[in-house]
């Protein structure tokens, strides 16, 4: 009986183990399979990455707006930075941005003189980083008074005459070409002092005269405004003392034009013998004096650095050119007549579509002289000759502005005004030039010429007065800061270079690949992307 019981027990135990083993094996295998499939499913991580990258791009774009806003204000970003970083790890919508600026001309961190910068905004969200890069030009609204009529495309003491198909308009190459209205002005009071008889439209012109001027001052219907007071037309500044005599023969570098500027010979406008030996004169920083300056097609001048040139007598150019190297400036004081035929003064790119700040080339006329700019001449400059008659003929163009006694535009000549020159000046009734009664301040009245030191001391007086007034205003602002936005006196013009990913790097790699396998079919693979 005992033996039977034992046998029955053993039989029952063996059956249970088989089933248990199968079940355990199934569970373990199933669990492993699920774990394996689970580990392979990275959809969530991928979609998180994609979302983070998109968010980071948008945050970087917002960071660029912040950077532009900073440049527009009076903040001391030029000095308060660490290796160009002006904002670091600033939190914005669950991301962090770092803004850095570099001087685009030196590729170094900005200094007090920096006005062109490369802005780089790096934004990161959950480890995903995106870049946005922009080139920006800051047009400072400095505390300067403007008394040289640079707010006017054309300003004439006595008369402005436009005939033929001549035009006064915006210079489209200027970074501020979006401005529409172009100002012209005169101190004349007699009827018909402003003759706008060109067949070209003058609807964007605005004429500014003194209040006593005749109601018939212009021959055509033009939007007219008045000065708040009768402004003075100051004499040009004195030329520097102790200039070095300039000899065009001694400094010739003797380049063959065929080597240096061969493309010009095939230009439609070149009329000289292409085999002619050409000489380029390099003029370094300094003050120079010359009796007469005559440049023909065989000679050209390149300005390197800050140059002041005093021409005691006439200045004549026929098919000549004066070009400025990068960052160079030229100030000319002309004592005699000016006759420029099919000539050029400006940056190296002679196209009228190529911009240069016209204030880098200032030409002053001192005496009662006649200026004639004809042919296909182009001057990218400011002309200030209060006692001279300036005449533009042919298809000549002044890209900048003219202030003279009489200004005559004929043929298809043009004055292309650059709004970067506009600092308010006499046309701005809010300018500190005017006192609280609207009259020109006594300090400005005492000026007789564009003397920089005198103007600076007047500026200090006027802006100190204004600052005192602002203290009272600021106390009110302090109470209402939430309603009063930060002042943004400076204009910033910028262009986007990189958004998210830098296409320029891809293109550079493609170029290198082509160079490496020159004349072979170079394949672009996915390895080149990053």
């Amino acid at each position, binding site marked *: 009986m005992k033996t039977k019981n034992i046998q029955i027990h053993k039989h029952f135990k063996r059956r249970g183990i088989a089933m248990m083993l199968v079940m355990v094996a199934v569970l373990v295998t199933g669990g492993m399979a699920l774990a394996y499939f689970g580990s392979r499913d990275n959809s969530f991580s991928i979609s998180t990455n994609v979302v983070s990258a998109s968010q980071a791009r948008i945050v970087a774009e917002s960071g660029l707006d912040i950077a532009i806003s900073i440049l527009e204000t009076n903040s001391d970003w030029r000095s308060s930075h660490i290796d160009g970083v002006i904002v670091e790890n600033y939190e914005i919508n669950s991301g962090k941005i770092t803004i850095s600026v570099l001087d685009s001309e030196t590729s170094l961190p900005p200094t007090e003189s920096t006005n062109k910068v490369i802005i780089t905004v790096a934004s990161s969200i959950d480890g995903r980083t995106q870049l946005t890069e922009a080139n920006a030009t800051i047009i400072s609204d400095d505390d300067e008074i403007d008394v040289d009529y640079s707010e006017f495309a054309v300003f004439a003491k006595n008369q402005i005459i436009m005939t033929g198909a001549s035009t006064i308009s915006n210079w489209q190459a200027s970074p501020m070409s979006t401005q529409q209205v172009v100002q012209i002005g005169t101190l004349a009071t007699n009827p018909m002092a402003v003759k706008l008889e060109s067949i070209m439209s003058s609807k964007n012109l605005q004429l500014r005269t003194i209040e006593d001027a005749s109601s018939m001052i212009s021959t055509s219907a033009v939007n007219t405004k008045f000065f708040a007071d009768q402004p003075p037309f100051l004499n040009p500044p004195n030329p520097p003392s102790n200039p070095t005599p300039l000899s065009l023969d001694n400094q010739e570098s003797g380049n063959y034009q065929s080597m240096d500027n061969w493309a010009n010979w095939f230009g439609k406008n070149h009329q000289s013998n292409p085999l002619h030996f050409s000489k380029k004169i390099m003029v370094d920083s300094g003050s120079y004096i010359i009796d007469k300056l005559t440049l023909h097609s065989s000679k050209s001048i390149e300005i390197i650095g800050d140059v002041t040139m005093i021409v005691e007598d006439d200045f004549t150019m026929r098919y000549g050119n004066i070009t400025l190297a990068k960052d160079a400036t030229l100030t000319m004081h002309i004592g005699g007549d000016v006759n420029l035929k099919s000539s050029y003064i400006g940056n190296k790119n002679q196209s009228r579509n190529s911009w240069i700040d016209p204030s880098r080339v200032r030409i002053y006329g001192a005496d009662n002289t006649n200026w004639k700019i004809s042919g296909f001449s182009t001057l990218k400059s400011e002309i200030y000759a209060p006692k001279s008659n300036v005449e533009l003929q042919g298809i000549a163009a002044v890209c900048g502005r003219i202030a003279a006694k009489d200004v005559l535009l004929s043929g298809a000549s043009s004055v292309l005004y650059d709004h970067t020159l506009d600092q308010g000046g006499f046309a701005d009734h809010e300018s500190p030039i005017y006192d609280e009664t609207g009259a020109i301040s006594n300090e400005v009245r005492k000026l007789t010429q564009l003397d920089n030191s005198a103007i600076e001391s007047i500026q200090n007086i006027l802006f100190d007065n204004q600052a005192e007034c602002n203290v009272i205003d600021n106390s009110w602002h302090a109470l209402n800061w939430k309603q009063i936005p930060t002042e943004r006196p400076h204009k910033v013009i910028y262009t986007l270079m990189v*958004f998210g990913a830098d296409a320029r790097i891809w293109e550079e790699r493609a170029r290198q690949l082509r160079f490496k396998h020159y004349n072979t079919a170079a394949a672009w693979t996915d390895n080149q992307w990053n």
Partner: protein
Amino acid sequence: MNRRGLSLIEMTIAIGITAVIGLAIASMMAAATNSLASKDDGRQSAIRLATTQVRLGAYIAPSNCLLDKANEMLTFWFNDINESNSVNIDEVRWIQYDSASKTLSVKFVNFPDDWTPQMFESANIECNSLTDYSQLLEEFELNNHIEKITLVDSMTNCKFWTNNINTLEATQVSIRFSLESVYGETKDAIIDEGIRLHQSPSD
């Protein structure tokens, strides 16, 4: 009676159960693998879509303006490196869909490195409102002065839209496309990218 070992019935039942469970596991594994491959394919397509957006955005967003639009090509004024407010040929980018190779590529002018600045300047022509950019591309391709980067491959179709009939005024570009995948074509995707700082050439 000797009760060691298993009876035929027991063995048959055990093998039967094991076979049923094995079949169930095998079919489950097959279904899971299939689903995994399908998911992988979907993920790859999603990544390619995101990459396409980034690559197109890198060209469209910083561009100054759209110069021309054809059925299978967009022409952009990518930047103004000459600061001339006018379009020079080295500032132009053509984004072109090639239905034969099923690729979307960007093309740009690349002059030989051994050219002098004068040669470069004369070849780097200035375009205007009358310029035929498609013809220009063909001419430069004939002279072997065009570089090409493939942005996306295995693209089965691609169509372009803009938010303005006048291409120079367009500020928004839409690209509708589908991609080839292991399990066939993806559904149509649309990328909508804006020209952030629109600027037309001066003429």
